[in-house]
């Protein structure tokens, strides 16, 4: 008789490859060619530049509310860099860099954030779902897609992103549990940026890590330094490979920080100190990668300037392309409610078109 019996034991690991001074742990360094290394860097710079530009455009009233990714480039770009074209990406709303990496045209993202639904028409070939605004609700779609990949014998996996706040939603738990039960080829990547709007991670859950939440579902969980693009890439790549081989899902916690406001509607000074933000700015993922690249002889001052200039060019082109998009027509609202317009909807649409034909234009209420 063994009255007190240890049934199972677990521990949660954290991984770091790239130090803040740019040096790496060789034993853990993932295989990356010089071209890949440069591509990573270029992409992170492009994403930051795009993010900055979007912010300016938002302040000018040319875009609506959106969520910046500054400081989180290491986390979501590092993870998405491990994707293959046949894999799927199921994003939340704070993965601009991952979306661009998948091949989404920048102007389309501008269009989306400007409040034009046509921006949501992500090319089907990208295997990338549209942005999901309701927190925590989309990861279960990744499980459904993962189930389908597995059932059809496709050697591909699904990567889904979400914040640490999302882990408090019931849907997170249901998705994790079902992924475990069905051994779905899904990699759950939590960008733990330590805030859900104003709520700090310590108040989001009594669990000291997000990674250990995997244990509730018989899944592997691991934490990586999210500002260490090599660690994130390495861990995600391995997890995706395991998934593709049918070895089941993984939860990755990329521990990072949101150095900007939550969205352009937020004012983070209401709930956290400048010092805290400044300390995290010093752990910038792009700077860290640049240090490594310089030490490896892959980057110098000219290179930095060239990459920056190229990023600015590409963003400028995208803005021009965005501005050339003709305005959306009111009929668009009716187009994709169903595959085919139903008779009641046709009636409603026709009524709108008749109103517009008489010259009526929608009038906001006076004094707004």
């Amino acid at each position, binding site marked *: 008789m063994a009255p007190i019996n240890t049934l199972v034991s677990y521990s949660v690991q954290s991984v770091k490859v790239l130090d803040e001074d740019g040096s790496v742990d060789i034993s853990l360094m993932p295989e990356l060619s010089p071209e890949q290394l440069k591509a990573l860097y270029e992409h992170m710079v492009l994403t930051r530049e795009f993010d900055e530009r979007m912010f300016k455009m938002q302040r000018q009233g040319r875009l609506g509310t959106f969520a910046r990714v500054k400081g989180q480039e290491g986390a979501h770009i590092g993870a998405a860099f491990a994707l293959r074209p046949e894999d799927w990406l199921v994003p939340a709303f704070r993965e601009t860099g991952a979306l661009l990496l998948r091949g989404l045209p920048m102007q389309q993202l501008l269009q989306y954030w400007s409040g034009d*639904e*046509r921006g*949501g*028409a*992500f*090319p*089907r070939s990208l295997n990338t*779902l*549209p942005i*999901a605004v*309701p927190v925590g*609700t*989309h990861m*279960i*779609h*990744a*499980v*459904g*897609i*993962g*189930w*389908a*990949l597995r*059932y059809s014998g496709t050697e591909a996996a699904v990567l889904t992103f979400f914040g640490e706040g999302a882990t408090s939603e*019931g*849907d997170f738990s*249901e*998705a994790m*549990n*079902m992924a475990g*039960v*069905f051994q779905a080829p899904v990699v759950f990547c939590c960008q733990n940026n330590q805030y859900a709007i104003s709520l700090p991670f310590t108040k989001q859950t009594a669990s000291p890590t997000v990674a250990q939440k995997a244990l509730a579902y018989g899944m592997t969980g691991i934490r990586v330094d999210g500002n260490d693009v090599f660690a994130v890439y390495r861990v995600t790549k391995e997890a995706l490979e395991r998934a593709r081989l049918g070895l089941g899902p993984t939860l990755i916690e990329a521990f990072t920080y949101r150095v900007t406001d939550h969205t352009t509607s937020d004012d983070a000074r209401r709930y956290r100190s400048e010092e805290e933000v400044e300390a995290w700015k010093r752990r910038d993922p792009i700077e860290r990668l640049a240090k490594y690249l310089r030490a490896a002889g892959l980057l110098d001052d000219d290179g930095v300037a060239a990459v920056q200039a190229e990023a600015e060019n590409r963003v400028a082109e995208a803005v021009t392309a965005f501005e050339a998009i003709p305005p959306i027509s009111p009929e668009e609202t009716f*187009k*994709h*409610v*169903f*595959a*085919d317009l*139903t*008779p*009641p*909807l046709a009636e409603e649409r026709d009524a709108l078109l008749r109103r517009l034909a008489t010259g009526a234009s929608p009038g906001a209420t006076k004094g707004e």
Partner: protein
Amino acid sequence: MAKLNMVEAIDQALQQEMQSDPSVIILGEDVGRDGGVFRVTDGLIQRYGEDRVIDTPLAESGIVGMAIGMAIAGYRPVAEIQFAGFAYPAYDQLVSHASRMRNRSRGGVHGAARVRMPYGGGIRALEHHSESMEAVYAHVPGLKVVVPADPYDAKGLLVAAVRDPDPVIFLEPARIYRAIKMEVPEEPYVVPLGKARVVRPGRDVTLIAWGAQLRVMREAAERLAAEAGTEAEIVDVRTLSPFDFETVVESVKKTGRAVVVHEAPRSCGFGAEISAQIMERALLYLKAPVARITGADTIPPLAKLEDYYQPDAPRVVQAVKDTMEF
């Protein structure tokens, strides 16, 4: 032709669609090994295996969410929610995703989960097992809502729903799962979504209902004919969304009177929509206000008081008489 009850007709529809279309997948609680708590999916796992008839964990939001993912990936998932009263945890997935995925992606992907659930009262069940909340689905743009009233329609409408490219809430009136047996063709057939039907012609008043209430209507119509010589035309709505206002309005234009019947709570039930549309489209034809016979705006009572809540033939007969005398 074989005589089937609704459970058998649905089972057959599912079996045949699975047979002809390998992308059809069943998922839900106890749908596999157990064949569903009402045995609606009986025998399917034996034929199609655990991968296509999936016993899921106990998580309604997860079931619908997974179905959405499957639909995105090109499958035709048919999810079962064990009882309509347990579908609310999945309401967010239905409203925020199933109904919108197509719109959000401008047709790139869609969230066409077909969600079957037994619904409605009259089965002397526990709390939450007698819900008739069709209106909270019918109000959601992007969802289709279907309610069959007999085995023939159940098969044909379900075949249509499985083949439909949009998400469908398929509400199966548990009360008549086994109460009606009728001839159901062996081969698959489609009863198109979005089309109501006149199940009994009549000149004096239009009775409008769906699901289990159709039986109540028929009984009421017979009594009315016998007791008062009143000939009621009965319209089975069949699809609440998209709603076939033409069939309904045409009938009311002919009869000039209408009684809508549902067991859902009265306030903001689908009967209100029908009543409003009749007024909008046929006011000048009306000889009396459209009457609604409905459940009360109370929690659906447990077994002992259930009959006081459910509409019944005497209530409908009385409502018609009042309408005739208006």
